Protein backbone atom coordinates (compact mmCIF):
# COMPACT_ATOMS: atom_id res chain seq x y z
CA UNK A 1 0.00 0.00 0.00
CA UNK A 2 1.12 3.49 -0.76
CA UNK A 3 0.13 5.34 2.46
CA UNK A 4 3.64 5.12 3.86
CA UNK A 5 5.33 6.71 0.85
CA UNK A 6 2.75 9.39 0.18
CA UNK A 7 3.66 12.92 1.25
CA UNK A 8 1.37 15.82 0.27
CA UNK A 9 3.10 18.51 -1.77
CA UNK A 10 1.67 21.57 -0.02
CA UNK A 11 2.63 22.52 3.49
CA UNK A 12 -1.01 22.81 4.56
CA UNK A 13 -1.72 19.39 3.03
CA UNK A 14 1.15 17.88 4.96
CA UNK A 15 -0.01 19.56 8.18
CA UNK A 16 -3.52 18.16 7.74
CA UNK A 17 -2.40 14.73 6.55
CA UNK A 18 -0.15 14.29 9.59
CA UNK A 19 -3.21 14.79 11.78
CA UNK A 20 -5.82 12.92 9.70
CA UNK A 21 -4.35 10.94 6.77
CA UNK A 22 -7.32 11.47 4.44
CA UNK A 23 -5.01 12.55 1.61
CA UNK A 24 -3.04 9.32 2.01
CA UNK A 25 -6.32 7.43 1.73
CA UNK A 26 -7.27 9.33 -1.42
CA UNK A 27 -3.83 8.60 -2.86
CA UNK A 28 -4.19 4.92 -2.03
CA UNK A 29 -7.59 4.80 -3.75
CA UNK A 30 -6.37 6.52 -6.93
CA UNK A 31 -3.14 4.54 -7.26
CA UNK A 32 -4.66 1.24 -6.11
CA UNK A 33 -3.10 -1.35 -8.44
CA UNK A 34 -5.86 -3.17 -10.32
CA UNK A 35 -5.50 -6.21 -12.61
CA UNK A 36 -5.33 -4.93 -16.16
CA UNK A 37 -7.62 -7.65 -17.54
CA UNK A 38 -10.78 -6.82 -15.55
CA UNK A 39 -13.79 -7.17 -17.86
CA UNK A 40 -17.16 -5.44 -17.71
CA UNK A 41 -18.50 -7.93 -15.16
CA UNK A 42 -16.17 -6.14 -12.72
CA UNK A 43 -17.93 -2.79 -13.15
CA UNK A 44 -20.90 -3.78 -11.00
CA UNK A 45 -19.18 -2.85 -7.73
CA UNK A 46 -19.19 0.77 -8.83
CA UNK A 47 -22.70 0.45 -10.21
CA UNK A 48 -23.88 -0.91 -6.85
CA UNK A 49 -22.33 2.03 -5.00
CA UNK A 50 -24.27 4.30 -7.34
CA UNK A 51 -27.47 2.33 -6.62
CA UNK A 52 -27.01 2.63 -2.85
CA UNK A 53 -26.41 6.38 -3.04
CA UNK A 54 -29.42 6.81 -5.36
CA UNK A 55 -31.66 4.97 -2.88
CA UNK A 56 -30.35 6.98 0.08
CA UNK A 57 -30.76 10.35 -1.64
CA UNK A 58 -34.21 9.68 -3.12
CA UNK A 59 -35.26 8.01 0.14
CA UNK A 60 -34.33 11.01 2.28
CA UNK A 61 -36.35 13.22 -0.06
CA UNK A 62 -39.38 10.89 -0.04
CA UNK A 63 -39.33 10.78 3.78
CA UNK A 64 -39.94 14.55 3.74
CA UNK A 65 -43.38 13.94 2.21
CA UNK A 66 -44.35 10.44 3.35
CA UNK A 67 -46.49 9.87 6.47
CA UNK A 68 -45.91 6.62 8.32
CA UNK A 69 -49.42 5.96 9.62
CA UNK A 70 -51.85 3.21 8.63
CA UNK A 71 -54.60 5.76 7.87
CA UNK A 72 -52.42 8.25 6.00
CA UNK A 73 -49.57 6.32 4.35
CA UNK A 74 -51.47 5.30 1.22
CA UNK A 75 -52.81 8.82 0.68
CA UNK A 76 -49.40 10.37 1.32
CA UNK A 77 -47.86 8.21 -1.42
CA UNK A 78 -50.56 9.40 -3.82
CA UNK A 79 -49.83 12.93 -2.62
CA UNK A 80 -46.17 12.40 -3.55
CA UNK A 81 -47.24 11.12 -6.98
CA UNK A 82 -49.71 13.91 -7.75
CA UNK A 83 -48.90 17.04 -5.73
CA UNK A 84 -45.23 17.10 -4.78
CA UNK A 85 -43.00 18.78 -7.39
CA UNK A 86 -41.28 15.97 -9.28
CA UNK A 87 -42.59 13.60 -6.61
CA UNK A 88 -43.55 11.07 -9.28
CA UNK A 89 -40.01 11.10 -10.64
CA UNK A 90 -38.35 10.72 -7.27
CA UNK A 91 -40.67 7.91 -6.20
CA UNK A 92 -40.31 6.05 -9.49
CA UNK A 93 -36.50 6.35 -9.25
CA UNK A 94 -36.67 4.97 -5.70
CA UNK A 95 -39.02 2.06 -6.47
CA UNK A 96 -37.31 1.07 -9.72
CA UNK A 97 -33.96 1.80 -8.09
CA UNK A 98 -34.60 -1.10 -5.73
CA UNK A 99 -35.06 -3.43 -8.71
CA UNK A 100 -31.95 -2.05 -10.42
CA UNK A 101 -30.01 -2.53 -7.18
CA UNK A 102 -30.98 -6.20 -7.08
CA UNK A 103 -30.33 -6.69 -10.80
CA UNK A 104 -26.81 -5.36 -10.26
CA UNK A 105 -26.22 -7.34 -7.08
CA UNK A 106 -27.27 -10.61 -8.73
CA UNK A 107 -24.84 -10.00 -11.61
CA UNK A 108 -22.15 -9.10 -9.05
CA UNK A 109 -22.79 -12.33 -7.09
CA UNK A 110 -22.83 -14.57 -10.16
CA UNK A 111 -19.62 -12.91 -11.38
CA UNK A 112 -18.05 -13.92 -8.09
CA UNK A 113 -19.38 -17.47 -8.52
CA UNK A 114 -17.99 -17.75 -12.05
CA UNK A 115 -14.52 -16.36 -11.38
CA UNK A 116 -14.15 -17.88 -7.89
CA UNK A 117 -13.81 -14.46 -6.23
CA UNK A 118 -15.21 -15.89 -2.97
CA UNK A 119 -12.23 -18.22 -2.54
CA UNK A 120 -9.20 -17.79 -0.31
CA UNK A 121 -8.00 -15.17 0.52
CA UNK A 122 -11.27 -13.32 -0.17
CA UNK A 123 -13.73 -15.20 2.10
CA UNK A 124 -14.37 -12.19 4.34
CA UNK A 125 -15.16 -9.97 1.35
CA UNK A 126 -17.69 -12.61 0.25
CA UNK A 127 -19.28 -12.90 3.71
CA UNK A 128 -19.52 -9.11 4.08
CA UNK A 129 -21.16 -9.04 0.65
CA UNK A 130 -23.73 -11.61 1.73
CA UNK A 131 -24.49 -9.57 4.85
CA UNK A 132 -25.08 -6.57 2.60
CA UNK A 133 -27.36 -8.73 0.43
CA UNK A 134 -29.38 -9.85 3.49
CA UNK A 135 -29.77 -6.25 4.65
CA UNK A 136 -30.79 -5.26 1.11
CA UNK A 137 -33.58 -7.84 1.21
CA UNK A 138 -34.73 -6.59 4.63
CA UNK A 139 -34.69 -2.97 3.44
CA UNK A 140 -36.51 -3.82 0.20
CA UNK A 141 -39.17 -5.83 2.02
CA UNK A 142 -39.84 -3.09 4.58
CA UNK A 143 -39.81 -0.42 1.89
CA UNK A 144 -42.42 -2.36 -0.05
CA UNK A 145 -44.70 -2.29 3.02
CA UNK A 146 -44.60 1.51 3.39
CA UNK A 147 -47.13 2.49 0.64
CA UNK A 148 -49.68 0.41 2.61
CA UNK A 149 -51.33 -1.10 -0.46
CA UNK A 150 -52.79 -4.57 -0.64
CA UNK A 151 -49.51 -6.21 -1.66
CA UNK A 152 -47.69 -4.24 1.05
CA UNK A 153 -50.06 -5.46 3.72
CA UNK A 154 -50.31 -9.08 2.65
CA UNK A 155 -46.65 -9.36 1.77
CA UNK A 156 -45.87 -8.14 5.28
CA UNK A 157 -48.38 -10.62 6.72
CA UNK A 158 -46.91 -13.59 4.87
CA UNK A 159 -43.26 -12.72 5.56
CA UNK A 160 -43.74 -11.95 9.26
CA UNK A 161 -45.75 -15.17 9.61
CA UNK A 162 -42.65 -17.07 8.47
CA UNK A 163 -41.38 -16.54 12.02
CA UNK A 164 -44.47 -18.21 13.49
CA UNK A 165 -43.04 -21.49 12.14
CA UNK A 166 -40.40 -21.41 14.90
CA UNK A 167 -41.45 -24.00 17.51
CA UNK A 168 -42.74 -22.78 20.91
CA UNK A 169 -41.77 -19.10 20.71
CA UNK A 170 -42.84 -18.48 17.10
CA UNK A 171 -46.17 -16.79 17.91
CA UNK A 172 -44.62 -14.51 20.55
CA UNK A 173 -41.92 -13.46 18.09
CA UNK A 174 -44.51 -12.67 15.42
CA UNK A 175 -46.60 -10.59 17.85
CA UNK A 176 -43.43 -8.80 18.95
CA UNK A 177 -42.54 -8.02 15.33
CA UNK A 178 -46.05 -6.69 14.69
CA UNK A 179 -46.47 -4.75 17.95
CA UNK A 180 -50.11 -5.78 17.60
CA UNK A 181 -52.13 -8.92 16.97
CA UNK A 182 -51.84 -8.54 13.22
CA UNK A 183 -49.91 -6.35 10.79
CA UNK A 184 -51.14 -2.91 11.86
CA UNK A 185 -50.08 0.68 12.48
CA UNK A 186 -47.30 -0.22 14.97
CA UNK A 187 -45.84 -2.54 12.32
CA UNK A 188 -45.84 0.23 9.73
CA UNK A 189 -44.13 2.81 11.96
CA UNK A 190 -41.34 0.43 13.02
CA UNK A 191 -40.79 -0.70 9.44
CA UNK A 192 -40.39 2.93 8.43
CA UNK A 193 -37.84 3.50 11.19
CA UNK A 194 -35.84 0.41 10.20
CA UNK A 195 -36.17 1.11 6.49
CA UNK A 196 -34.47 4.44 7.13
CA UNK A 197 -31.76 2.82 9.26
CA UNK A 198 -30.71 -0.15 7.11
CA UNK A 199 -29.20 1.75 4.13
CA UNK A 200 -26.71 3.36 6.50
CA UNK A 201 -25.83 -0.04 7.95
CA UNK A 202 -25.29 -1.18 4.36
CA UNK A 203 -23.08 1.85 3.75
CA UNK A 204 -20.94 0.86 6.75
CA UNK A 205 -20.66 -2.71 5.47
CA UNK A 206 -19.74 -1.41 2.02
CA UNK A 207 -16.78 0.42 3.58
CA UNK A 208 -15.67 -2.83 5.24
CA UNK A 209 -16.32 -4.75 1.98
CA UNK A 210 -14.00 -2.39 0.07
CA UNK A 211 -11.47 -2.32 2.88
CA UNK A 212 -11.33 -6.12 2.88
CA UNK A 213 -11.04 -6.03 -0.92
CA UNK A 214 -8.05 -3.70 -0.77
CA UNK A 215 -6.08 -6.14 1.39
CA UNK A 216 -5.56 -8.92 -1.22
CA UNK A 217 -6.64 -6.74 -4.16
CA UNK A 218 -9.09 -7.63 -6.91
CA UNK A 219 -9.55 -11.10 -8.26
CA UNK A 220 -9.44 -11.14 -12.08
CA UNK A 221 -10.84 -13.16 -14.99
CA UNK A 222 -7.79 -15.45 -15.03
CA UNK A 223 -8.16 -15.95 -11.28
CA UNK A 224 -4.44 -16.06 -10.49
CA UNK A 225 -2.49 -14.22 -7.80
CA UNK A 226 -0.56 -11.32 -9.30
CA UNK A 227 2.27 -9.11 -8.13
CA UNK A 228 1.18 -5.58 -7.24
CA UNK A 229 2.10 -3.23 -8.71
CA UNK A 230 3.54 -4.92 -11.78
CA UNK A 231 3.07 -5.11 -15.53
CA UNK A 232 -0.13 -7.03 -14.71
CA UNK A 233 -1.72 -4.04 -13.00
CA UNK A 234 -2.93 -0.56 -13.86
CA UNK A 235 -3.69 2.26 -11.40
CA UNK A 236 -7.38 2.47 -10.42
CA UNK A 237 -7.52 6.03 -11.69
CA UNK A 238 -7.97 6.75 -14.55
CA UNK A 239 -8.11 3.25 -16.03
CA UNK A 240 -10.82 1.68 -13.89
CA UNK A 241 -12.71 4.85 -13.09
CA UNK A 242 -13.31 5.57 -16.77
CA UNK A 243 -14.34 1.98 -17.48
CA UNK A 244 -16.69 1.98 -14.47
CA UNK A 245 -18.12 5.33 -15.57
CA UNK A 246 -18.86 4.02 -19.06
CA UNK A 247 -20.57 0.89 -17.69
CA UNK A 248 -22.53 3.06 -15.27
CA UNK A 249 -23.72 5.18 -18.17
CA UNK A 250 -25.09 2.12 -19.98
CA UNK A 251 -26.69 0.94 -16.75
CA UNK A 252 -28.33 4.33 -16.23
CA UNK A 253 -29.86 4.14 -19.71
CA UNK A 254 -31.63 0.90 -18.75
CA UNK A 255 -32.55 2.40 -15.36
CA UNK A 256 -34.01 5.51 -17.03
CA UNK A 257 -35.85 3.27 -19.50
CA UNK A 258 -37.76 1.70 -16.62
CA UNK A 259 -38.33 4.98 -14.78
CA UNK A 260 -39.69 6.87 -17.77
CA UNK A 261 -41.29 4.21 -19.97
CA UNK A 262 -42.31 1.31 -17.71
CA UNK A 263 -42.27 2.54 -14.11
CA UNK A 264 -44.85 0.01 -12.91
CA UNK A 265 -43.91 -3.02 -14.98
CA UNK A 266 -41.96 -4.60 -12.11
CA UNK A 267 -44.65 -3.83 -9.51
CA UNK A 268 -48.14 -5.20 -8.92
CA UNK A 269 -51.31 -3.29 -9.68
CA UNK A 270 -52.83 -4.65 -6.43
CA UNK A 271 -50.56 -2.29 -4.54
CA UNK A 272 -52.57 0.65 -5.86
CA UNK A 273 -55.48 -0.64 -3.74
CA UNK A 274 -55.32 0.48 -0.10
CA UNK A 275 -54.52 -2.23 2.47
CA UNK A 276 -57.60 -4.18 3.59
CA UNK A 277 -57.13 -6.68 6.42
CA UNK A 278 -60.42 -8.41 5.49
CA UNK A 279 -59.49 -9.43 1.94
CA UNK A 280 -56.40 -11.20 0.69
CA UNK A 281 -55.57 -10.61 -3.01
CA UNK A 282 -56.18 -13.71 -5.11
CA UNK A 283 -52.52 -14.09 -5.99
CA UNK A 284 -49.80 -12.88 -3.64
CA UNK A 285 -46.35 -12.60 -5.13
CA UNK A 286 -43.28 -10.94 -3.70
CA UNK A 287 -41.14 -8.59 -5.76
CA UNK A 288 -39.27 -10.34 -8.56
CA UNK A 289 -35.91 -10.37 -6.79
CA UNK A 290 -37.27 -12.58 -3.99
CA UNK A 291 -39.11 -15.05 -6.24
CA UNK A 292 -36.50 -17.88 -6.27
CA UNK A 293 -36.60 -18.03 -2.47
CA UNK A 294 -40.39 -17.83 -2.50
CA UNK A 295 -40.46 -20.82 -4.86
CA UNK A 296 -38.25 -22.77 -2.46
CA UNK A 297 -40.56 -21.86 0.44
CA UNK A 298 -43.63 -23.10 -1.40
CA UNK A 299 -42.01 -26.25 -2.77
CA UNK A 300 -42.03 -27.85 0.70
CA UNK A 301 -45.41 -29.21 1.88
CA UNK A 302 -44.46 -28.45 5.49
CA UNK A 303 -44.49 -25.00 7.08
CA UNK A 304 -41.35 -25.22 9.22
CA UNK A 305 -39.52 -27.24 6.57
CA UNK A 306 -40.28 -24.62 3.92
CA UNK A 307 -39.04 -21.79 6.10
CA UNK A 308 -35.84 -23.67 7.01
CA UNK A 309 -35.05 -24.44 3.36
CA UNK A 310 -35.74 -20.87 2.30
CA UNK A 311 -33.36 -19.38 4.85
CA UNK A 312 -30.97 -22.29 4.25
CA UNK A 313 -30.78 -21.36 0.56
CA UNK A 314 -29.21 -18.04 1.58
CA UNK A 315 -27.15 -19.22 4.55
CA UNK A 316 -25.52 -22.02 2.57
CA UNK A 317 -23.79 -19.27 0.58
CA UNK A 318 -21.93 -18.22 3.73
CA UNK A 319 -20.00 -21.52 3.79
CA UNK A 320 -19.50 -21.59 0.02
CA UNK A 321 -15.76 -20.78 0.24
CA UNK A 322 -15.31 -24.01 2.21
CA UNK A 323 -17.65 -26.14 0.11
CA UNK A 324 -15.74 -25.43 -3.09
CA UNK A 325 -12.69 -27.69 -2.98
CA UNK A 326 -11.06 -26.62 -6.26
CA UNK A 327 -7.74 -24.81 -6.01
CA UNK A 328 -8.31 -23.07 -9.34
CA UNK A 329 -10.41 -19.92 -8.95
CA UNK A 330 -11.62 -18.97 -12.40
CA UNK A 331 -14.20 -21.10 -14.23
CA UNK A 332 -12.27 -20.19 -17.40
CA UNK A 333 -9.90 -23.06 -16.52
CA UNK A 334 -12.55 -25.36 -15.03
CA UNK A 335 -14.34 -27.14 -17.91
CA UNK A 336 -16.72 -29.15 -15.68
CA UNK A 337 -17.55 -26.47 -13.11
CA UNK A 338 -18.20 -24.03 -15.95
CA UNK A 339 -21.12 -26.17 -17.13
CA UNK A 340 -22.54 -26.60 -13.64
CA UNK A 341 -22.30 -22.83 -13.16
CA UNK A 342 -24.60 -22.25 -16.11
CA UNK A 343 -26.98 -24.99 -14.93
CA UNK A 344 -27.17 -23.17 -11.59
CA UNK A 345 -27.96 -19.89 -13.36
CA UNK A 346 -30.77 -21.61 -15.26
CA UNK A 347 -31.96 -23.32 -12.07
CA UNK A 348 -32.26 -19.98 -10.24
CA UNK A 349 -34.07 -18.43 -13.20
CA UNK A 350 -36.50 -21.38 -13.31
CA UNK A 351 -37.10 -21.04 -9.56
CA UNK A 352 -37.77 -17.35 -10.09
CA UNK A 353 -40.27 -18.13 -12.82
CA UNK A 354 -42.21 -20.76 -10.86
CA UNK A 355 -42.15 -18.47 -7.81
CA UNK A 356 -44.38 -16.11 -9.77
CA UNK A 357 -46.75 -18.90 -10.82
CA UNK A 358 -49.47 -20.60 -8.72
CA UNK A 359 -48.10 -23.36 -6.47
CA UNK A 360 -49.80 -26.26 -8.23
CA UNK A 361 -49.40 -28.84 -11.01
CA UNK A 362 -46.29 -28.61 -13.17
CA UNK A 363 -45.08 -25.47 -11.36
CA UNK A 364 -44.93 -27.32 -8.06
CA UNK A 365 -42.98 -30.17 -9.68
CA UNK A 366 -40.55 -27.68 -11.25
CA UNK A 367 -40.15 -25.86 -7.94
CA UNK A 368 -39.30 -29.12 -6.18
CA UNK A 369 -36.79 -30.21 -8.81
CA UNK A 370 -35.27 -26.72 -8.82
CA UNK A 371 -34.99 -26.64 -5.02
CA UNK A 372 -33.35 -30.06 -4.84
CA UNK A 373 -30.90 -29.12 -7.58
CA UNK A 374 -30.03 -25.81 -5.88
CA UNK A 375 -28.92 -27.57 -2.71
CA UNK A 376 -27.33 -30.42 -4.67
CA UNK A 377 -25.15 -27.88 -6.47
CA UNK A 378 -23.65 -26.50 -3.28
CA UNK A 379 -23.60 -29.57 -1.06
CA UNK A 380 -22.61 -32.32 -3.53
CA UNK A 381 -21.56 -31.00 -6.95
CA UNK A 382 -19.14 -28.27 -5.81
CA UNK A 383 -17.09 -30.39 -3.37
CA UNK A 384 -16.99 -33.43 -5.69
CA UNK A 385 -16.18 -31.52 -8.89
CA UNK A 386 -13.37 -29.75 -7.07
CA UNK A 387 -11.70 -33.11 -6.41
CA UNK A 388 -12.39 -34.89 -9.70
CA UNK A 389 -12.12 -32.14 -12.28
CA UNK A 390 -9.03 -31.98 -14.50
CA UNK A 391 -8.47 -28.24 -14.79
CA UNK A 392 -6.90 -26.59 -17.81
CA UNK A 393 -3.39 -25.04 -17.57
CA UNK A 394 -3.41 -21.74 -15.71
CA UNK A 395 -1.10 -18.93 -16.98
CA UNK A 396 1.78 -17.74 -14.80
CA UNK A 397 0.74 -14.13 -15.13
CA UNK A 398 -1.87 -12.04 -16.89
CA UNK A 399 0.69 -10.64 -19.33
CA UNK A 400 2.53 -13.82 -20.28
CA UNK A 401 0.02 -15.61 -22.53
CA UNK A 402 -0.87 -12.30 -24.16
CA UNK A 403 2.63 -10.92 -24.68
CA UNK A 404 4.07 -14.21 -25.93
CA UNK A 405 1.43 -14.08 -28.64
CA UNK A 406 0.41 -17.68 -28.22
CA UNK A 407 -3.05 -18.86 -27.48
CA UNK A 408 -1.93 -22.28 -26.35
CA UNK A 409 -0.54 -21.10 -23.02
CA UNK A 410 2.92 -22.41 -23.87
CA UNK A 411 4.29 -20.51 -20.92
CA UNK A 412 1.57 -21.70 -18.67
CA UNK A 413 1.94 -23.69 -15.57
CA UNK A 414 1.00 -27.32 -15.74
CA UNK A 415 -2.45 -28.04 -14.41
CA UNK A 416 -3.03 -26.34 -11.08
CA UNK A 417 0.28 -26.70 -9.32
CA UNK A 418 1.45 -23.88 -7.09
CA UNK A 419 -1.84 -22.03 -6.95
Amino acid at each position, binding site marked *: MSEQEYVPKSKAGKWFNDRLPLLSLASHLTDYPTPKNLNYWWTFGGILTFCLLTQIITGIVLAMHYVAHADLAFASVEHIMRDVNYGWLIRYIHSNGASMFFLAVYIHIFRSLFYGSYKSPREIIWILGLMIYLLMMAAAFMGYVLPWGQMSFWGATVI*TNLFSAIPLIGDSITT*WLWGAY*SVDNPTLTRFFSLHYLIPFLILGLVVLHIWALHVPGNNNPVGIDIKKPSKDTVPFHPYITIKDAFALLLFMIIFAGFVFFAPNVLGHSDNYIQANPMVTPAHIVPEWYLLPFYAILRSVPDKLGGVILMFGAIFILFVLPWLDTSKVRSAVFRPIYRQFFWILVIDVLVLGYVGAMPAEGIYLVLARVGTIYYFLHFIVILPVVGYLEKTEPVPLSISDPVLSGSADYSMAKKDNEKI
Partner: protein
Amino acid sequence: MDKSEKKTTRRDFLFTTSYTVGAVGLGAVIWPLIDQMNPDKAQKALATTEVDISQIEPGKSITVLWRGKPVFLKRRTQEEILEARSVSLEELPHPEKDEERVKNGKDEWLVMLGVCTHLGCVPLSNKGDYKGWFCPCHGSHYDLSGRIRKGPAPKNMEIPKYEFVDANTIKIG
Protein backbone atom coordinates in the same frame (compact mmCIF):
# COMPACT_ATOMS: atom_id res chain seq x y z
CA MET B 1 -1.94 -24.37 46.92
CA ASP B 2 0.83 -22.46 45.16
CA LYS B 3 1.19 -18.69 45.23
CA SER B 4 0.30 -17.83 41.62
CA GLU B 5 -2.92 -19.83 41.75
CA LYS B 6 -4.04 -17.91 44.80
CA LYS B 7 -3.39 -14.60 43.06
CA THR B 8 -5.39 -15.63 40.01
CA THR B 9 -8.35 -16.57 42.19
CA ARG B 10 -8.67 -13.12 43.79
CA ARG B 11 -8.46 -11.42 40.41
CA ASP B 12 -10.90 -13.91 38.90
CA PHE B 13 -13.40 -12.99 41.59
CA LEU B 14 -13.16 -9.31 40.67
CA PHE B 15 -13.47 -10.06 36.96
CA THR B 16 -16.41 -12.38 37.43
CA THR B 17 -18.35 -10.04 39.68
CA SER B 18 -17.65 -7.07 37.39
CA TYR B 19 -18.76 -8.96 34.31
CA THR B 20 -21.88 -10.23 36.10
CA VAL B 21 -22.93 -6.80 37.37
CA GLY B 22 -22.16 -5.37 33.92
CA ALA B 23 -24.22 -8.04 32.17
CA VAL B 24 -27.18 -7.54 34.51
CA GLY B 25 -27.01 -3.79 33.95
CA LEU B 26 -26.80 -4.22 30.22
CA GLY B 27 -29.76 -6.62 30.26
CA ALA B 28 -31.79 -4.17 32.35
CA VAL B 29 -31.15 -1.46 29.77
CA ILE B 30 -31.77 -3.65 26.72
CA TRP B 31 -35.04 -5.17 27.93
CA PRO B 32 -37.10 -1.93 27.75
CA LEU B 33 -35.74 -1.39 24.25
CA ILE B 34 -36.94 -4.84 23.20
CA ASP B 35 -40.23 -4.87 25.12
CA GLN B 36 -41.36 -1.52 23.68
CA MET B 37 -42.02 -3.41 20.44
CA ASN B 38 -44.63 -5.69 22.05
CA PRO B 39 -48.32 -4.72 21.75
CA ASP B 40 -48.94 -1.54 23.75
CA LYS B 41 -51.83 -0.72 26.07
CA ALA B 42 -53.88 0.79 23.27
CA GLN B 43 -53.55 -2.41 21.23
CA LYS B 44 -54.48 -4.56 24.21
CA ALA B 45 -57.51 -2.37 24.93
CA LEU B 46 -59.10 -3.44 21.65
CA ALA B 47 -59.42 -6.94 22.97
CA THR B 48 -63.21 -7.50 22.76
CA THR B 49 -65.83 -7.04 20.04
CA GLU B 50 -69.59 -7.64 20.27
CA VAL B 51 -71.39 -8.89 17.16
CA ASP B 52 -75.12 -8.93 16.35
CA ILE B 53 -75.89 -12.27 14.69
CA SER B 54 -79.68 -11.97 14.34
CA GLN B 55 -79.52 -11.23 10.61
CA ILE B 56 -77.47 -14.25 9.57
CA GLU B 57 -79.45 -16.88 7.64
CA PRO B 58 -78.53 -20.58 7.88
CA GLY B 59 -75.73 -21.40 5.45
CA LYS B 60 -74.48 -17.81 5.43
CA SER B 61 -71.54 -16.25 7.17
CA ILE B 62 -70.22 -12.82 8.07
CA THR B 63 -66.73 -11.56 8.72
CA VAL B 64 -65.89 -9.08 11.47
CA LEU B 65 -62.62 -7.50 12.46
CA TRP B 66 -61.20 -8.35 15.91
CA ARG B 67 -57.73 -7.22 16.97
CA GLY B 68 -57.02 -6.39 13.33
CA LYS B 69 -57.81 -9.91 12.23
CA PRO B 70 -60.93 -11.16 10.44
CA VAL B 71 -63.24 -13.48 12.39
CA PHE B 72 -65.63 -15.73 10.46
CA LEU B 73 -69.07 -16.27 12.01
CA LYS B 74 -70.82 -19.00 10.03
CA ARG B 75 -74.33 -20.27 10.71
CA ARG B 76 -74.16 -23.81 9.39
CA THR B 77 -77.06 -25.84 8.02
CA GLN B 78 -77.88 -29.28 9.46
CA GLU B 79 -76.35 -30.98 6.39
CA GLU B 80 -73.14 -29.02 6.83
CA ILE B 81 -72.92 -29.98 10.50
CA LEU B 82 -73.55 -33.63 9.66
CA GLU B 83 -70.90 -33.55 6.96
CA ALA B 84 -68.35 -31.97 9.31
CA ARG B 85 -69.06 -34.66 11.89
CA SER B 86 -68.99 -37.61 9.50
CA VAL B 87 -65.21 -37.39 9.06
CA SER B 88 -63.09 -39.84 11.04
CA LEU B 89 -60.31 -38.27 13.08
CA GLU B 90 -57.62 -40.37 11.40
CA GLU B 91 -58.14 -38.43 8.17
CA LEU B 92 -57.28 -35.12 9.84
CA PRO B 93 -53.75 -33.65 9.92
CA HIS B 94 -54.72 -31.83 13.14
CA PRO B 95 -57.34 -34.09 14.75
CA GLU B 96 -60.15 -32.21 16.49
CA LYS B 97 -63.81 -33.18 16.76
CA ASP B 98 -66.29 -30.71 15.33
CA GLU B 99 -68.02 -30.78 18.76
CA GLU B 100 -64.85 -29.37 20.35
CA ARG B 101 -64.85 -26.45 17.93
CA VAL B 102 -68.36 -25.11 18.70
CA LYS B 103 -70.25 -24.25 21.88
CA ASN B 104 -72.42 -27.04 23.28
CA GLY B 105 -76.03 -26.56 22.08
CA LYS B 106 -74.97 -23.90 19.59
CA ASP B 107 -73.76 -26.41 17.01
CA GLU B 108 -74.79 -24.29 14.04
CA TRP B 109 -72.46 -21.43 14.98
CA LEU B 110 -68.86 -21.76 13.89
CA VAL B 111 -66.81 -18.80 15.15
CA MET B 112 -63.15 -18.82 14.18
CA LEU B 113 -60.23 -16.61 13.19
CA GLY B 114 -60.33 -16.20 9.41
CA VAL B 115 -56.58 -16.53 9.28
CA CYS B 116 -54.80 -19.33 7.47
CA THR B 117 -52.45 -21.07 9.91
CA HIS B 118 -49.80 -21.28 7.20
CA LEU B 119 -48.75 -17.68 6.62
CA GLY B 120 -51.73 -15.62 7.71
CA CYS B 121 -53.79 -14.97 4.56
CA VAL B 122 -57.60 -14.80 4.69
CA PRO B 123 -59.12 -17.99 3.21
CA LEU B 124 -62.09 -17.71 0.81
CA SER B 125 -65.37 -19.28 1.96
CA ASN B 126 -67.32 -21.97 0.07
CA LYS B 127 -64.22 -22.89 -1.86
CA GLY B 128 -61.77 -25.76 -1.99
CA ASP B 129 -62.04 -29.53 -2.07
CA TYR B 130 -63.87 -29.79 1.27
CA LYS B 131 -66.60 -27.15 0.71
CA GLY B 132 -65.28 -25.09 3.60
CA TRP B 133 -62.51 -22.58 2.96
CA PHE B 134 -59.62 -22.32 0.57
CA CYS B 135 -56.54 -20.16 1.04
CA PRO B 136 -55.48 -18.61 -2.27
CA CYS B 137 -51.96 -17.80 -1.14
CA HIS B 138 -50.44 -21.25 -0.88
CA GLY B 139 -53.35 -23.62 -1.48
CA SER B 140 -54.58 -24.84 1.93
CA HIS B 141 -58.03 -26.51 2.00
CA TYR B 142 -60.24 -26.33 5.12
CA ASP B 143 -63.47 -28.26 5.79
CA LEU B 144 -66.86 -27.14 7.14
CA SER B 145 -65.44 -27.12 10.65
CA GLY B 146 -62.46 -24.97 9.64
CA ARG B 147 -60.10 -27.90 9.99
CA ILE B 148 -57.07 -28.21 7.73
CA ARG B 149 -57.47 -31.07 5.26
CA LYS B 150 -54.96 -30.48 2.50
CA GLY B 151 -52.06 -28.09 1.83
CA PRO B 152 -49.14 -26.54 3.73
CA ALA B 153 -51.05 -25.14 6.76
CA PRO B 154 -50.11 -27.10 9.89
CA LYS B 155 -53.19 -26.48 12.07
CA ASN B 156 -56.94 -25.98 12.04
CA MET B 157 -58.14 -22.39 11.95
CA GLU B 158 -58.04 -21.04 15.49
CA ILE B 159 -61.16 -20.70 17.62
CA PRO B 160 -60.95 -17.43 19.57
CA LYS B 161 -62.31 -17.02 23.09
CA TYR B 162 -65.98 -16.01 22.67
CA GLU B 163 -69.34 -16.29 24.40
CA PHE B 164 -73.04 -15.81 23.69
CA VAL B 165 -74.12 -12.70 25.59
CA ASP B 166 -77.72 -13.43 24.58
CA ALA B 167 -79.45 -15.29 21.75
CA ASN B 168 -78.51 -12.61 19.20
CA THR B 169 -75.14 -11.38 20.39
CA ILE B 170 -71.69 -12.91 20.45
CA LYS B 171 -68.83 -11.33 22.35
CA ILE B 172 -65.41 -12.17 20.93
CA GLY B 173 -62.34 -11.89 23.14
